[in-house]
């Protein structure tokens, strides 16, 4: 990689240990992804916030660097493990809570905006077309590249943090003109958000860094998010390009058979003991839609609804949170279905959800069964 004189100086340690570590991460990442230089970015979104995922080593590292490290660009971050407003209802141990709060404090000390959200593209203004950003959360990186006209690598927790501290990122494939290795032809009739989640999951498996995708009809926000969440879960691919692509590009159908294969892989239970909605977290339009669909009915089981704190505040003002609580929902901010410590196999055998991303992590990390249903089906089967 070609580095500027200032970047070389930082890498040698002449601007302090934190900058040296940050540049070491950018150079190692850049060399590993065939970047030839570093470029400025305007917004970093960090992962590696939940104590469940980064553990003691992560907590100690962040606590150490937060003593003098400060972010150089606008920096937002992913959900953590719980919502402080209601954590006492969930039987989490003291160690988890104190370690999680230490992580929260470290990020805040570095100047990170405490958004605790995996949908930065819904709660912050999107910069102008073509802006370079560094998003570590996979669904957000895919959404940014595919729907928001932004450019990002699929960053790791470490490269995004290094980008936040330096304002730079490796100039790797997805920041340039990327050539997809495959074109997926969507061939499933009457898709709902589950179908799109599974389409994304399929795309992540067959795609390299980006995929062409054709045959999509009009999609709503929930369906777009489901597709990004699914893709981020199954591979390293981080961009949908809408269209048939080059005639030389390999073509593959996503049909009923592929849909069934993924359904069989992720759907491991006939019914769930509880319901979770939100992975990615729900935006205001999804909350509004949920309230509309409920029409005064109530859930017959526990239903956890994950949404960013800013959305919860807006929803409260409109009266949606009252309505959801009346229907028996537990509304949780700052955390998400994905990698939640709030669902344990000691108390829950299986979870019903409409999220492919949530299903993957509930099955593999929480070790609980998963019952996949679309939101409409959940409302029909689980409310009265």
């Amino acid at each position: 990689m070609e580095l500027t004189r200032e970047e070389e100086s930082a890498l040698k340690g002449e601007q302090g240990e934190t900058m040296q570590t940050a540049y070491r991460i950018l150079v190692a990442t850049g060399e590993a992804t065939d970047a030839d230089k570093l470029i400025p970015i305007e917004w970093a979104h960090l992962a590696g916030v939940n104590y469940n995922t980064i553990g003691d080593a992560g907590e100690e590292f962040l606590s150490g660097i937060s003593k003098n490290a400060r972010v150089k660009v606008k920096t937002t971050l992913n959900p953590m493990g719980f919502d402080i407003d209601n954590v006492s209802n969930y039987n989490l141990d003291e160690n988890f809570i104190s370690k999680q709060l230490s992580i929260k404090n470290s990020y805040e000390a570095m100047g990170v905006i405490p958004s605790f959200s995996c949908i930065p593209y819904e709660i912050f203004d999107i910069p102008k077309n073509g802006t370079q950003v560094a998003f570590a959360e996979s669904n957000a990186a895919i959404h940014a590249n595919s729907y928001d006209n932004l450019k990002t690598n699929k960053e790791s927790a470490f490269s995004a943090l290094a980008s936040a501290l330096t304002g730079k990122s490796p100039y790797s494939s997805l920041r340039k003109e990327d050539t997809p290795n495959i074109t997926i032809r969507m061939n499933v009739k009457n898709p709902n958000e589950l179908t799109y989640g599974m389409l994304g999951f399929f795309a992540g498996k067959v795609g390299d860094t980006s995929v062409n995708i054709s045959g999509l009809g009009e999609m709503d926000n929930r369906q777009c998010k489901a597709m990004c969440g699914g893709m981020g879960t199954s591979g390293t691919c981080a961009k949908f390009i809408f269209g048939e692509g080059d005639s030389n590009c390999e073509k593959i159908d996503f049909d009923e058979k592929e849909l069934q294969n993924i359904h069989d892989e992720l759907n491991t239970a006939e019914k769930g003991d509880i319901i979770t909605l939100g992975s990615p977290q729900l935006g205001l339009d999804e909350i509004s839609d949920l309230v509309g669909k409920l029409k005064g009915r109530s859930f017959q089981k526990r239903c956890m609804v994950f949404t960013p704190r800013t959305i919860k505040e807006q929803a409260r003002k409109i009266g949606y949170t009252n309505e959801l609580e009346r229907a028996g929902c537990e509304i949780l901010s700052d955390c998400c279905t994905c990698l939640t410590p709030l669902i344990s196999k000691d108390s829950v055998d299986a979870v019903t959800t409409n999220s492919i991303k949530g299903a993957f992590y509930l099955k593999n990390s929480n070790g609980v069964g998963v019952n996949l249903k679309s939101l409409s089906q959940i409302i029909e089967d689980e409310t009265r």
Partner: protein
Amino acid sequence: MKVLVSGKVQGIVLKSKDSINFLGTVDKKTGIISDKNHDLFEKSLKDIILVFPSGVGSSVGAYTIYSIKSNNTAPLAMICQKADLTVATGCALANIPLIIISDEEFSSIESGMNISLDTDSTNPLHYQ
């Protein structure tokens, strides 16, 4: 050859034919491989030059590399056949030299060899 993290060290090679998932298979205190199915099972990574095909698994494994360095049980350097982001960022965090070498050179290195590595040199790898 590609330098991901620079540095200068000398040491004895411990080579694995298996990839390493740092999150699941390396004890973050002792630096000992704890996975029965791994060909380095019960071997310590402390103060050796670790040669292996590549890292696999969760990117959080980078923190495991940082942990073993903090606990003084980390390798002196790592040499891989294929670059992966977990090992790259882990070595960068922990300041452990890391280079990627050709398949040919990879197959010529064996456990027990004494190697010196200097990434600033035009010929970074020397066999003693």
